[in-house]
């Protein structure tokens, strides 16, 4: 499929996704859908570094939370339009990603993963001790009831949903573009064998920095609207391990080598969690995510996409 066709298709689908629940007149779908979309962004962002380059980031929650707290800090100063907050969140988290990349340039595999976890705790401690954004007590954000767009009153949750939908489409387009570009090949060589990559002329250190920055920035963008969605932001919920686990589990379950994997994983796991939260309890649904992650890495280490591809290859041979 041509890139332009893909983008067009994605936008049409997104518009349909936005108007379908409006027809149903059910605001809950917007609330639940927002979370699923948010996970699509997080999973796709994680996968740029984790799936394409093979660097496991345990600190997704920190990038997400930094985006959210950037929005809170700006909001405390003076309320600004959402697109600006998203850009600001992206810039801050992107810079932190770049910084983490620099600190961990020479670290491989396990050490990188541990360092990313360490970075998350350092960030959380900084935020807890930062009184301007509420410290450990948290911060309230009073969101408007609705937004006026072209003299039309749009409920605020729908406005947030639309932005997250935009981010989800954008991150999928970015991921797909990377995959088919020179950058994508470069990332894949880092994942497979860094020394061989360098021998082929791939500037591995620079590509790693590009990946940590992009991945961080996307997570920060996903975090920026969060305070408005949740209404009350505290460090424990923004830095929750749930985000870190989900952004690993979703690509792992969907498959990490292409943009489709995180999408499948996020939609599947995100929806199951939304349903489970309503019908059972939120702790049980988290347990489910953990168990699914463990089961998948043991049984289908290449995720759903990997299993499908292996099956196709086997069929072709037979």
């Amino acid at each position, binding site marked *: 499929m041509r890139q332009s066709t893909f983008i067009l298709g994605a936008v049409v689908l997104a518009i349909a996704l936005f108007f379908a629940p409006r027809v149903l007149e059910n605001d809950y779908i917007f609330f639940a859908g927002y979370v699923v979309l948010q996970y699509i962004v997080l999973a796709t962002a994680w996968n740029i570094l984790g799936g394409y380059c093979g660097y496991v980031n345990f600190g997704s929650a920190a990038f997400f939370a930094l985006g959210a707290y950037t929005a809170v800090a700006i909001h405390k100063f003076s309320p600004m339009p959402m697109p600006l907050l998203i850009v600001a969140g992206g810039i801050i988290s992107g810079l932190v990603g770049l910084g983490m990349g620099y600190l961990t340039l020479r670290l491989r595999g396990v050490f990188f993963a541990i360092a990313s976890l360490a970075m998350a705790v350092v960030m959380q401690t900084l935020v807890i001790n930062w009184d301007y954004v509420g410290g450990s007590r948290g911060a309230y954000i009073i969101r408007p009831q609705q937004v006026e767009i072209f003299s039309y009153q749009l409920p605020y949750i729908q406005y947030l949903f639309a932005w997250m939908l935009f981010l989800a489409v954008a991150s999928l387009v970015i991921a797909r573009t990377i995959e088919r570009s020179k950058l994508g*090949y470069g990332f894949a060589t880092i994942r*497979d*064998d860094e*020394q*061989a990559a360098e021998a*082929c*002329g791939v*500037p591995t*250190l620079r590509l790693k920095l590009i990946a940590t920055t992009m991945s961080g920035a996307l997570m920060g963008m996903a975090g920026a609207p969060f305070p408005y969605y949740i209404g009350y932001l505290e460090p424990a919920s923004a830095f929750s391990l749930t985000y870190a686990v989900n952004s690993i589990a979703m690509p792992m379950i969907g498959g990490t080598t292409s943009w489709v994997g995180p999408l499948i994983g996020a939609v599947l796991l995100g929806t199951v969690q939304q349903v489970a939260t309503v019908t059972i309890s939120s702790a049980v649904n988290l347990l489910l995510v953990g168990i699914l992650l463990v089961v998948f890495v043991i049984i289908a280490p290449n995720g759903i996409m990997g299993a499908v591809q292996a099956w196709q290859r086997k069929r072709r041979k037979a």
Partner: protein
Amino acid sequence: MTAPLLEIQGLGKRFGGFVALDNINLSVAPQERVGLIGPNGSGKSTLVNCICGTLRNETGTVRFEGKAMDGLLAHERTRLGMARSFQLPRPFKTLTVAENLRVPLLYTVDARSGSKLSQRELDERCMELLALVGLADKAWQYPGDLTQVEMRKLELARAMAAEPKLLIADESMAGLSHSEVDDILALLVRLNERGITIIMIEHIMRAVMTFSQRVIVLVSGKKIADGLPEDVIRDPEVVGAYLGQ
């Protein structure tokens, strides 16, 4: 004699207290075929790593086309025209055979010329290289499906894709059968005929003797001989080192 393509002066490398390379001096002329031999652990691979920038040498300089390589990273040296194959083949296992060759084309050839190859040019170059090494029909397979000798060929083809001036082939024939060795040898000779300087690191003496115009011997990190193949193998010091005296 023309100006050397590769010149190494006073090169030294330590790992902690262990001296891996000690004051190595050598030069390689353009289009030369040089064999580098030595017992296991004599520092051959360390030397390759220092030449290619994978490891940093503590003392001495590596000059390539008269230019000092100090501080240049591995990928920058590749772009200047050095290429290597690895002792154990290290293909990009999640990319197809053809895609493996695309990487140096995208990251070295494009970067060097400053222009972008089109998709069609890329495909053509890949197929041309694969035809050269005899892997054309495996283009869309994954490296995991290749045999040992095919893997070695892929390794060489990938090094070649970067259009190097100097190719360092690190034990490209270890573990291959008699006829497979001949296969790879013929390939290396063909590459040399195209004007590429080749340093061959090898244990198989038959291959080294037929291929090399000159042989260099490393023993415990020191160069102990450098000359015509037939002279070198008669050198008492070399014989001693190989017989373990």
